[in-house]
């Protein structure tokens, strides 16, 4: 047992970049992606209320200068919008399984 291994790990960690705080450009990109997915869901007549709320939360956080929060909310909105698109697409056929015949 030597000290070389723990020291090597500490050395490596010291070289690793610290998590970078999000900036306005990150937010703009994340919001644009979320908004595009949300518009696609709307076009399918299957928008979710939670997507709209997450988009609003992203905008509010960005307006307050909290770009970390804004990016997180925008990414959540994008994920929700994509889930609603998946639902609308799969339900084009899946609804028939529920039908009373």
């Amino acid at each position: 047992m030597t000290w070389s291994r723990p020291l090597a790990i500490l050395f490596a960690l010291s070289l690793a970049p610290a998590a970078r705080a999000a900036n306005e450009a990150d937010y703009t990109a994340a919001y644009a992606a979320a908004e595009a997915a949300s518009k696609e869901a709307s076009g399918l007549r299957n928008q979710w209320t939670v997507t709209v709320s997450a988009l609003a939360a992203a905008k509010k956080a960005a307006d307050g200068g909290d770009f970390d929060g804004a990016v997180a909310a925008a990414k959540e909105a994008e994920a929700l919008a994509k889930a609603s698109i998946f639902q609308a697409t799969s339900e084009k056929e899946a609804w028939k399984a529920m039908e009373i015949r």
Partner: protein
Amino acid sequence: MKGRIALLFGSVSVALVAFALTSARVIAADKVDPAADAKAFQNFFFQKFPEVKHEDFVNGPYSMNADMKRQWQEKEEFPPYEFALEAGKEMFATPFRNGKTYADCFPNGGIGIRQNYPYFDQKEGKVVTLELALNRCREANGEAPYSYVKDEMASLTAYMAFTSRGKPMDIEIPDDPRALAAFESGKRYFYTRRGQMNFSCASCHVESPGERIRAEILAPALGILNAMPIYRSEWSGMGTISRRFVTCNSQTRAVPLEPQADEYRDVEYFLSYVANGLPIAGPGARP
């Protein structure tokens, strides 16, 4: 050799017959047949709840729970929709600024006709609901349309429903491919899951009538519109069919469509048609 040929011929014949039978089934499954759908729909509920009288399904949760039914029957002595009914009667009789009234817009002066709505308008090629027809009547007579989700519309439809109480729902689907498409569209909307909760209308009102969702007892889909509009204690007021659809969508965390969107008109057409023969019971009261 002859045996092999006979075997091959036999196999091909069996395959062809199987294919023909399967194709016929697929075609039959895709054909729009509202009468067969209505029969299957009603039978589903009649068999699921054999103890419920057929005409009682229109009373929603009260048909599913004896205690609630007793409470409701007591409440019916002084029904909470009475104010709306009186207001609706007065509104219906009050002339527009041009001197005409709602009676001029409807067959039989608008009395006892609720059971025929919605109908398929072959000129427009779309479903026309009673709420829509009322607003079109207003606009044709130079009046501003009412909100589809507020009290005025609920009061008017409450009065019109009351004049049809006890009459069997009687929705027609004309021999028009557009009418069949509207019925099919309504059916699809009814069974399609939506919102973050991944619920369809059928999730609650076909799979779970009589079950509780939080404090409420779910109504069966059969006859669910026959008692509309309704006074809901939860809303502390009256609600139209439009309001009911919008609220259901919101509860599944789906963004509601605009009132009287084609999809809502079509689902009203579907739900009303499959309730043909059951009595009009509106206006109703619900918890």
